[in-house]
């Protein structure tokens, strides 16, 4: 009966490595938040506790606009990319090979392989023409460009989830005369959920990070937080950016908490 007490799920050392990974992930973030409360204008020398930089950030409308714009772009691009990637993943997995399958796979992952500066320069040239023709110069260009490079980041986790996922459940539902849409909503989608969430989160953070493409595609008054910081890098970066980052983090923690409670109610 020794087997009963033995947890088949645990692997020796995995918990320790996972703990280490989380320490690695959070250590820089903790220092980052700590320096948001630095009284001096240095990112490295501690000058006492102060809320000074939060005040600065609250007064600096340029940086707030940029942060807000980044969030809007990331949310829109990640949402569109996740929907498109989910559809594409369903279309390219669990199927007998058909003509064009490998082509689709390569095609969808292509944005990953094109160096950012190349996409940036080429999009600049193409979008500039479109801007002149249509007279429209809103955020749409940035969202479209971000969506494109987010697609592989959403696609790969979803596809990894789908691959080898048992089709029996869906077939059973279809046999019970559930219309295809119902089968998808009630069976496929819930099974896919972890993949979709992983894909969406990846797409979201990738979009938040982008500098080079945004720098070239943005029109007047469309600085995102990264392009704003790129401009600052040459001169001086103060803990003001830490304060903004800390605010972002606080927001994300609130979201996680809400998410956690919603999830708890469901189960």
């Amino acid at each position, binding site marked *: 009966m020794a087997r009963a007490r033995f947890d088949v799920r645990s692997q020796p050392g995995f918990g320790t490595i996972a703990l280490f990974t989380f320490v690695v992930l959070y250590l820089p973030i903790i220092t980052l938040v700590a320096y948001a409360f630095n009284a001096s204008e*240095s*990112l*490295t*020398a501690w000058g006492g506790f102060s809320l000074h930089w939060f005040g600065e950030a609250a007064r*600096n409308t*340029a940086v707030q606009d940029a942060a*807000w*714009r980044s969030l*809007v772009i990331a*949310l*829109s691009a990640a*949402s*569109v990319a996740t929907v498109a990637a989910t559809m594409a993943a369903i279309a390219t997995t669990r199927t007998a090979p058909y003509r064009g399958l490998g082509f689709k796979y390569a095609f969808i992952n292509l944005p990953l392989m094109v160096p950012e500066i190349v996409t940036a*320069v080429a999009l*600049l*040239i193409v*979008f*500039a*023409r*479109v*801007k*002149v023709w249509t007279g429209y*110069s*809103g*955020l*749409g260009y940035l*969202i479209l460009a971000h969506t494109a490079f987010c697609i592989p980041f959403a696609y790969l986790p979803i596809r990894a989830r789908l691959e080898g996922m048992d089709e029996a459940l869906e077939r059973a539902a279809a046999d019970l005369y559930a219309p295809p849409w119902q089968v998808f909503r009630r069976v496929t*989608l819930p099974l896919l959920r972890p993949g979709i969430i992983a894909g*969406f989160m990846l797409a979201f953070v990738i979009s938040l990070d982008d500098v080079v493409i945004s*720098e*070239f595609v*943005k*029109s*007047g*008054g*469309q*600085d995102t937080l990264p*392009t*704003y910081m*790129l*401009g*600052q*890098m*040459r*001169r*001086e*970066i103060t803990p003001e950016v830490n304060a903004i980052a800390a605010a972002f983090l606080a927001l994300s923690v609130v979201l996680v908490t809400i*998410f956690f409670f*919603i999830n708890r109610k469901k189960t």
Partner: protein
Amino acid sequence: MNWKLTAVASAMAIVASVGGASAAGSLNIYNWGDYTSPELIKKFEQKYDVKVTVTDYDSNDTALAKVRAGGHGFDIVVPSANYVPIWVKEGLLLEARPDQMSNFKNVDERWVNVPWDPGRHYSVPWQWGLTGIGVNKKVYGGDINTSAIFLDPPKELVGKINVAPEMNDVLFATIKYFGGNWCTSDKEVLKKVRDKLVEAKPKWLAMDYSVTEKLPAGDYAGVYYWNGAIMRSRLKNPDIAFGYPKEGFPFFMDSVTILKDAKNVENAKLFMNFIMEPENAALISSFAKYANGIKGSAEFLPPEMKTAPELSVPAQFEKAGEFLTACPPEVSQLYTRIWTDVNK
């Protein structure tokens, strides 16, 4: 999935509300990041009832590529001296004739007949500076008015040097170090330049922009960098001293120009005239910490800038300074090759 839908919907709503604020009284400025004084902008907006939008770039080449592509919507751009002739040659700039504006009399004579825009038909001075040497005197006490600080570093500084990651500035100082002229294609000089840089680079710690942070903190003890940043470093750590490389150092000046396809030409001209007012020019300088080219602005500057040794070139070094001009394409190709070799 509902929260996601809500997120998308709200995002779309925001997208719709942002953008498209091109009222009659507006002005779109495209400038280097963190370079435009918010106070100056606010003052201009209030005085002329114009809505100003500032957008950042981080390199001359990015700005040039973007404007050349078209559809950018900018009115004003602030290129560096060596780029102004390129902008003119490519037909991107409006001949705005700032020299006929009422405040032009305030421009320092020194900055009127400049090689990149003789008589100032296109551009108005924004700020100028130079690339020089900054050294922590506690670490090294010898002569610092020389490019040898980073090309043949004294042993106290080896492994503690930071050099501006700017191809032109670095090559300029190195070519001058060997007595060559800027834009030279003399293979003998260039070979020495490349070999010297390849030899010196392992003695450097970094080629980075974070000087105002790391020079005062002691991570770097010697830098080849812009004077404004070194002044900021000295204000944080009084051990920092500034040196003018006697072999030769590059000046830079960024100038305000109006684009040929600008939509708000009148407002842009108002802005040009506005910044030639000494009090306004002082606002630019006190924000970005570089000198401007306007007479009489000094009295409006904060006290630590009035007396800064970094901002006024001593007479003995005046001759060593020279503006970085745009080299002919075949020469700049050679320079890129050297630069790639050095950084491989």
